[in-house]
């Protein structure tokens, strides 16, 4: 009985908890990475277990449906263990188990990263509270809060312009009753824990100073605040010294043709992402060997990349010039050559046979002439 408990504890940690921990490590990235180690222990254990089970399920489905492995023998051995009997395990099987363990860890990393990318790309964290990360400062300081459903309802107006940066006015306590107001462009911030600010990093900082205001005759009429530039590259403000701060977003106004290009690009990009997700699963349904499926997948991604390069070289969505940019024909030709090469490689590795069909079709067309 003791052996059983010990074995299952190890199995539980190795097979479920460790992949779950790796999933979470890769899911909480960038400004949300502090969320990985936060929360009560029981909660973290439960979520690790949940994602560990999900990773194991995906690994099981890949091995069973894609590689057509038979699990009957494995289930029989688990039954033996449940009956307090130790099954025979060969050296090869032990090696395969170790490979399986590392494989599930790797799969968890990929699933975690993919989950994060999907949530951020499709903005699920902005539209659904359940996906929202606990670092609320990210949404406020990056201007993404404007796109959340709650803020849209409260503000009652749609956001048309694009937030390019954030300007902050920070009132700092200098001890006693002394306060100083700084203004600058926010470049970075750091967090003490998952939701508490530690330091604000600004650039292009000005300090507001009170000076005497005079009229045209030089007579003092009162005081006024003037901004004095502070030379330097980065200005760090420890958050405990901050009394309050005001956030102002820097928007970019786009001329009509650029706005049109931007929204066209957004729509096409969305379709291309859907295509990318479809081609990620496409090779797994072919009858080719596993190694050929992997090669086919790599060349499918490569074909996708060159299609996008041809599209982006023609539309030029990343160029900020006011006039329409010129199309580089050399880039188009090279991308088209890479694309044809990748498509041929996909066809050969996955045995689709489209290459022979195209060849036959071309041959027939040429024969007619």
């Amino acid at each position: 009985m003791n052996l059983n408990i010990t074995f299952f504890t190890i199995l539980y940690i190795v097979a479920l908890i460790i992949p779950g921990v790796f999933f979470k490590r890769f899911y909480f990235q960038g400004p949300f990475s502090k969320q990985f180690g936060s929360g009560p222990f029981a909660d973290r254990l439960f979520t690790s277990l949940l994602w560990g089970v999900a990773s194991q399920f995906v690994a099981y489905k890949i091995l069973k449906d894609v590689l057509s492995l038979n699990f009957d023998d494995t289930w029989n051995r688990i039954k033996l263990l449940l009956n307090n009997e130790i099954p025979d395990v060969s050296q090869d099987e032990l090696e395969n188990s170790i490979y399986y363990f590392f494989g599930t860890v790797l799969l968890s990393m990929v699933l975690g990263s993919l989950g994060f990318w999907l949530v951020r790309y499709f903005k699920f964290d902005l539209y659904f509270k359940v996906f929202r990360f606990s670092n609320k400062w990210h949404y406020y300081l990056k201007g993404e809060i404007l796109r959340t459903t709650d803020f849209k309802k409260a503000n009652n107006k749609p956001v048309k312009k694009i937030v390019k940066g954030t300007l902050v006015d920070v009132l700092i306590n200098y001890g006693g009753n002394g306060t100083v107001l700084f203004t600058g462009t926010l470049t970075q911030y750091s967090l003490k824990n998952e939701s508490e600010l530690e330091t604000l990093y600004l650039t292009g900082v000005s300090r507001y100073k009170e000076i005497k205001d005079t009229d045209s005759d030089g007579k003092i009429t009162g005081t006024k605040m003037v901004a004095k530039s502070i030379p330097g590259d980065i200005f760090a403000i420890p958050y405990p010294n901050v009394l309050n701060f005001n956030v102002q977003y820097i928007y970019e106004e786009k001329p009509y043709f650029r706005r049109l290009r931007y929204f066209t690009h957004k729509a096409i990009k969305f379709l291309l992402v859907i295509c990318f997700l479809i081609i990620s699963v496409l090779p797994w349904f072919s009858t080719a060997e596993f190694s050929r499926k992997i090669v086919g997948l790599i060349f499918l991604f490569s074909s996708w990349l060159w299609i996008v390069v041809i599209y982006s070289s023609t539309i030029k969505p990343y160029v900020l010039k006011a006039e329409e940019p010129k199309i580089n024909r050399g880039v188009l030709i090279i991308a088209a050559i890479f694309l044809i090469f990748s498509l041929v490689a996909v066809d050969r590795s996955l045995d689709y046979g489209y290459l022979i069909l195209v060849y036959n079709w071309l041959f027939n067309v040429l024969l007619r002439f």
Partner: protein
Amino acid sequence: MNKPVKNTLSSIYLTIIEAKKVLNDFFNSDTEVMSQDIKNIMQNPEDRKKYLDAIKQLKVENKKRAEVTFSNNEKMTLTLEE
């Protein structure tokens, strides 16, 4: 090196640069406070100065909008009003 070979190599290089831009655009989760455009601007000292001056015009001089022309002739119109 003759001209056609040089042009081909240059096109291959530009194609790879374009592919890098595509991958960055599609797979970068954009979690930084500054947008990618602004980060590129900040890396060039001359453009950085122009950008920060434009911000100053908006914030301190209370201008409605500020147009910046960067060193590569790219233009950007900034505003603090939504």
